[in-house]
């Protein structure tokens, strides 16, 4: 057991084997608690209807079936808007918002990371201040602005605000400031413009940072329930329609709701799995001074 836990370099003197085992058991237990809702959701989504209402309720599924998933698709197909429409809407909102968000944030991050010019310090201060304002806090005033701009009931009500992602900007700026100046100096001697430097030198070198920003914006947009912004059925996205389905008929929809939650969860989780190391690389520079 202990052999699997010790580091390759060898055991540090401060680390007793006993301590490692205790820590591992503790983390394993807590980890099981963290995963509990996932396992329960998957188990619920695979339960046939009679198992969902058996008393007392069982945690694990006995006779797994994919009926709930089939029902989910059937129900969505019976609606007057074809199901593919919601998938396309979800993808459109997420992809446009993410690509634009990462690009704009990177473009703004580069000058802030590498140059000092009038207003740059103040700009940074405002960005850091706005990291405090999670989306929920600016929600009402933002809604008013969106309705003044006549963007309510269009996908742009979600896409445009997501394109000014301050956390993405901040993380990319931190990462870019670690790039050696010599890299840019060589290019500027060769006469490359700031925009050219950004595109052909900075962007390829800060791949982990923009991958991280991509994931953060992707997750936020993919999971957004659009129903407060979009009323037209043809424009709604997956979270909105899944919520609609699972709230209409409470008896039969427990399993369907679980199936919907499981399906929705897959893309962000898969995306994170493939980029964990890149994200950690970026986060190493997330630190904030005074």
């Amino acid at each position: 057991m202990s052999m699997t836990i010790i580091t390759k370099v060898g055991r540090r003197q401060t680390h007793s084997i006993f301590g490692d085992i205790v820590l591992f058991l503790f983390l394993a237990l807590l980890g099981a608690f963290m995963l509990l809702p996932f396992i329960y959701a998957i188990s619920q989504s695979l339960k046939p209807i009679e198992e969902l209402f058996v008393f007392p309720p069982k945690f694990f599924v006995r006779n797994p079936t994919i009926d709930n998933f089939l029902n989910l698709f059937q129900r969505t197909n019976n609606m007057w808007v074809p199901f593919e429409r919601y998938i396309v809407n979800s993808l459109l909102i997420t992809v446009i918002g993410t690509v634009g968000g990462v690009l704009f944030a990177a473009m703004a991050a580069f000058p802030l990371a590498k140059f000092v010019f009038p207003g740059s310090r103040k700009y940074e201060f405002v960005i850091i201040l706005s990291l405090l304002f999670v989306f929920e806090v600016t929600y009402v005033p933002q809604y008013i602005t969106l309705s003044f701009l006549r963007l309510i009931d269009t996908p742009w009500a979600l896409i445009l605000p997501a394109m000014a992602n301050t956390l993405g900007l901040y993380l990319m700026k931190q990462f870019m400031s670690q790039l050696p100046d010599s890299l840019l100096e060589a290019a500027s001697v060769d006469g490359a413009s700031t925009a050219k430097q950004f595109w052909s030198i900075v962007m390829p070198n800060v791949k982990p940072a923009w991958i991280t920003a991509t994931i953060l914006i992707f997750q936020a947009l993919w999971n957004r329930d659009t129903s407060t912004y979009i009323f037209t059925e043809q424009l709604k996205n997956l979270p909105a329609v899944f919520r609609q389905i699972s709230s209409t008929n409470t008896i039969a929809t427990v399993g369907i709701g679980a199936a919907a939650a499981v399906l929705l969860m897959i893309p962000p989780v898969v995306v994170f799995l493939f980029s964990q190391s890149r994200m950690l690389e970026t986060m190493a520079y997330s630190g904030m001074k005074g």
Partner: protein
Amino acid sequence: MKKTLFKEIRRNSDKYFLMLPFSILFVVFTVIPVISSILLSFTDFNMLQPVSFSGWSNYLRIFLDDDIFPIAVKNTLVFAVITGPLSYFLCLSLAWMINEFNKNIRTILTFIFYVPSISGTLFTIWAYIFSGDSNGLFNSILMRLGINYEPVLWLSDPRYMLTVIIIVQLWASLGTSFLAFIAGLQGVDRALYEAGTIDGIRTRFQELRFITLPSMGPQLMFAAVMQIGAAFGVSGICVALAGNPSTDYAAATIVTHLSDMGTARYEMGYASAIATILFITMVLINFGIKHLLKRYTNI
């Protein structure tokens, strides 16, 4: 002087140009909403009738004539004081524990602890686990073990609501800050630990206190800023589990109250006044925390 500033701006025009798209969107969707909400908080704007100036009356009404606001403030403070620091502590201590293991175990554990924060709508499954009838998973376990003889209304009894919400909140709170800590811990210079052993550091707790924490100041600061925002913005999980409005408004937070007034009743002027109070509180607390952290770490 003015001329040189203008020249400087001209000279750097390419930089401003790169920053333009982000800046426009940032100003339109963050700066203007914040400023306009401060202005609107002095009006009786309701999206239907023309706006008219109403002075401090919204603020007077919040403090003197709103039965829900004190509950919302109390709950938000409970979350900010309990969930905020607790989740900060959890992020840090779990990251530290995970970092004690080798790369493979570390990768798996990081994934397990981070994944709830990106699972989107999955937190609604907690509503089934804590469901109030005897069919709820938790209730049925308690009843089978003979601890309880009848189901407890975890999500609609004001006595339990907040505790359940705090648990779910903590479950979902190991997000960006947690990753920042894991990355920060890996960035601490290995040589410092070797030097520490020579200097007489014997346990991993001494290591944490004297080497790890002091070198993580910037990460601690970043995470503090992120967690303050999250703690004060609490609403999604409350609404999903206890509904909005919840029984007797027992799970109301400033943000749920704000969206209740703003998006359900269209009292935008009033909602703006609540938002303004929240902004000011968050900024003040942010400065306070920065001041504290500066004193205890070497930033």
